[in-house]
């Protein structure tokens, strides 16, 4: 088992983002020098972090990376990660876990935008809030997340699970505007409230345990169903889009 501790060193310009897609379990196995970028300057990892490595491993599954300190401006941590574990004590910057296909990322604080963008597998757990485009896709692309699980214990921003095409997204708090917009496949579960869910949905399932404010008028009411002992409304749509998605909400309001 290899345990890598990365403690952020004080920075002269703390708001300039650091791009650190090299922070993945696999890259610490290779033993090569790891570089990160501060804006347009490439720096060795230990110029940004105090690095401590304990133990050894010969496969990424056996590597755990722990980030501590102000990591709110560290972008792309865990990108393309396929195995192992990354634990972030505090907040994490944008694009954490992009394209991830396996392993676990656990975030103690809040996650910035595009958490788990185009994720294919593995698990992301965020104890705090996730900003906009959590578990979403890339500009112009047809498919967002295609597999794995993203679980947010706080609230999510706007456009959560946009273009979801597989896997599961669970938001324990509220979601913002347009959660599950363009949803193709997979499952989105929102335990709290949200606004205008699932616009242009073509397939997949979305369940909202709270109130769906400003429901779109283009979902056809199919009846009711009982979940966890409570009655939910079941819709199909989006009929603006030949959609055959399933949207289940505890309660909703319309923009009439």
């Amino acid at each position, binding site marked *: 088992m290899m345990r890598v501790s990365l403690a952020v060193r004080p920075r002269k*310009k703390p*708001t*300039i*983002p650091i*791009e650190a897609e090299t922070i993945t379990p696999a890259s610490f196995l290779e033993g090569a020098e790891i570089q990160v*970028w*501060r*804006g*347009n*300057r490439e720096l060795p990892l230990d110029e940004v972090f105090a690095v401590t490595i304990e133990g050894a491993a010969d496969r990424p599954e056996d590597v755990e990376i722990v980030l501590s300190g102000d990591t709110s*401006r560290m972008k792309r941590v865990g990108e393309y990660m396929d195995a192992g574990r990354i634990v972030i004590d505090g907040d994490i910057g*944008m694009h954490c876990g992009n394209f991830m296909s396996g392993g676990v990322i656990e975030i103690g604080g809040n996650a910035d*935008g*595009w958490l788990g963008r185009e994720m294919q597998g593995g698990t992301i757990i965020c104890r705090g809030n996730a900003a*906009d*485009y959590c578990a979403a896709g*890339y*500009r*112009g692309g047809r498919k967002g997340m295609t597999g794995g699980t993203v679980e947010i214990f706080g609230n999510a921003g706007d456009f959560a699970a946009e273009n979801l095409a597989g896997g599961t997204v669970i938001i324990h708090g509220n979601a913002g*505007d*347009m959660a599950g*917009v*363009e949803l193709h496949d997979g499952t989105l579960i929102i335990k709290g409230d949200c606004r*205008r869910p699932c*616009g*242009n949905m073509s397939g997949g399932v979305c369940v909202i345990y709270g109130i769906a404010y*400003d429901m*779109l*008028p*283009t979902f*056809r009411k199919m009846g009711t169903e009982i979940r966890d002992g409570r009655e939910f409304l079941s819709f199909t749509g*989006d*009929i*603006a*889009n*030949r959609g055959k998605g399933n949207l289940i909400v505890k309660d909703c309001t*319309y*923009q*009439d």
Partner: protein
Amino acid sequence: MIIKDTVCPFCGCLCDDIEVTVEDGKIVATDNACTLGTSKFLGDHRMKSPIRRVGKEWKEISYDEAIDYTVDMLLDADRPLLYGWSGTHGEAQCVGVHMAELLKGVIDNTSSVCHGPSILAIQEVGHPGCTLGQVKNRADIIIYWGCNPIDAHPRHLSRYTRYANGFFLENSFRDRKVIVVDVRKSQTTNLADEFVQIKPGCDYAVLSALRAIVRGKGDDLPRTVGGVQREQLFRIVDLCKKAKFGAVYFGLGLTMTAGKYKNIRNAIELVDELNRHTKFTISAMRGHYNVYGSNEVNTWMTGYPFGIDFSRGIAFYNPGETTAVDILARKECDACLIVASDPAAHFPRPCIEHLAEIPVVQIDPYANATTAFCDVQIPVGITGIDAAGTAYRMDGVPIRTKKVLETAYPSDEEILGSVYARIQEVRQP
């Protein structure tokens, strides 16, 4: 002297039929121009020479000193931001892209605060559009959605829609129907054959409802959507389907309200759906006369229309992250070059606060709101008045703007060219 067929460097209509009267090296009158265009042609109080802030005072400096300062500032930065560009010509924009690439900086234009969402929508579903003349000559139905052309694009109605006769429309006023969709009455709504008043923030729902009606699924809709009676929505769809050629024009009322690019996407998909029944097109009412040009230039040179981050050498694009407002609000840049725009007049407060904290150089003919946040400002010729160059109209038609005055001011392209050459000496010896 009267100079005919001059191109107006104000809005995205890029009218090219302006007559400009020049006397004693000054423009004294214009003909055909709207009030916005006229005020630009007749503009006065240009900044005389480059200025530099020294303590609380402004000091006049030479162009060479100003260029020195700019070069040093950009070379020192870890994440320079090169912002603006929509008020200058394409040739200058090209230099800007080369500069951003060599500096490994971020280059963004004003579309990130106007029609950036329209571009994001187009990147998801494409864009069924056409040139303005196609509309003038053919369209028997026009829909203005979330825009007020009488205020913002005053000649749009007379040159292309309401009052413009065309090849297939000999009496435009009679033969064309104009529908205006907006949250409130405006001067434009007064000219409409039909006004659809929707509640703020309800555009997306109304567009979805229209799509469902076009698809024959209107019976599933509630009685009112976003403040609009279902019957009116049915009537609109009926008018659209019966039209021979329809054209939708939308503005910031659609791009900058809740849902942003998803509103535009929904509107485009409505137009796609209508194309199964008749001919329909949709286009953005672009604001600055050459904002579309900066999108075009950026695209052929970098692959992306705005918000391009060269920090890592390759071009990376992610509006919401690599766009000026986001970068400034998050304090991600450590120097800023502003060209041909006035962010301090439009940007949210946290952005302006960051501008106040970092070195800023502005290239602009006039003192403006942003001047107060600059360390150096470099005055230049105004494209279309004392500098010539290429601009792209809102529909993508490129037109060469004219130089109608001889002044001593260098053009944007010349200043940027000097800065770029100096950066090349250091970074690419």
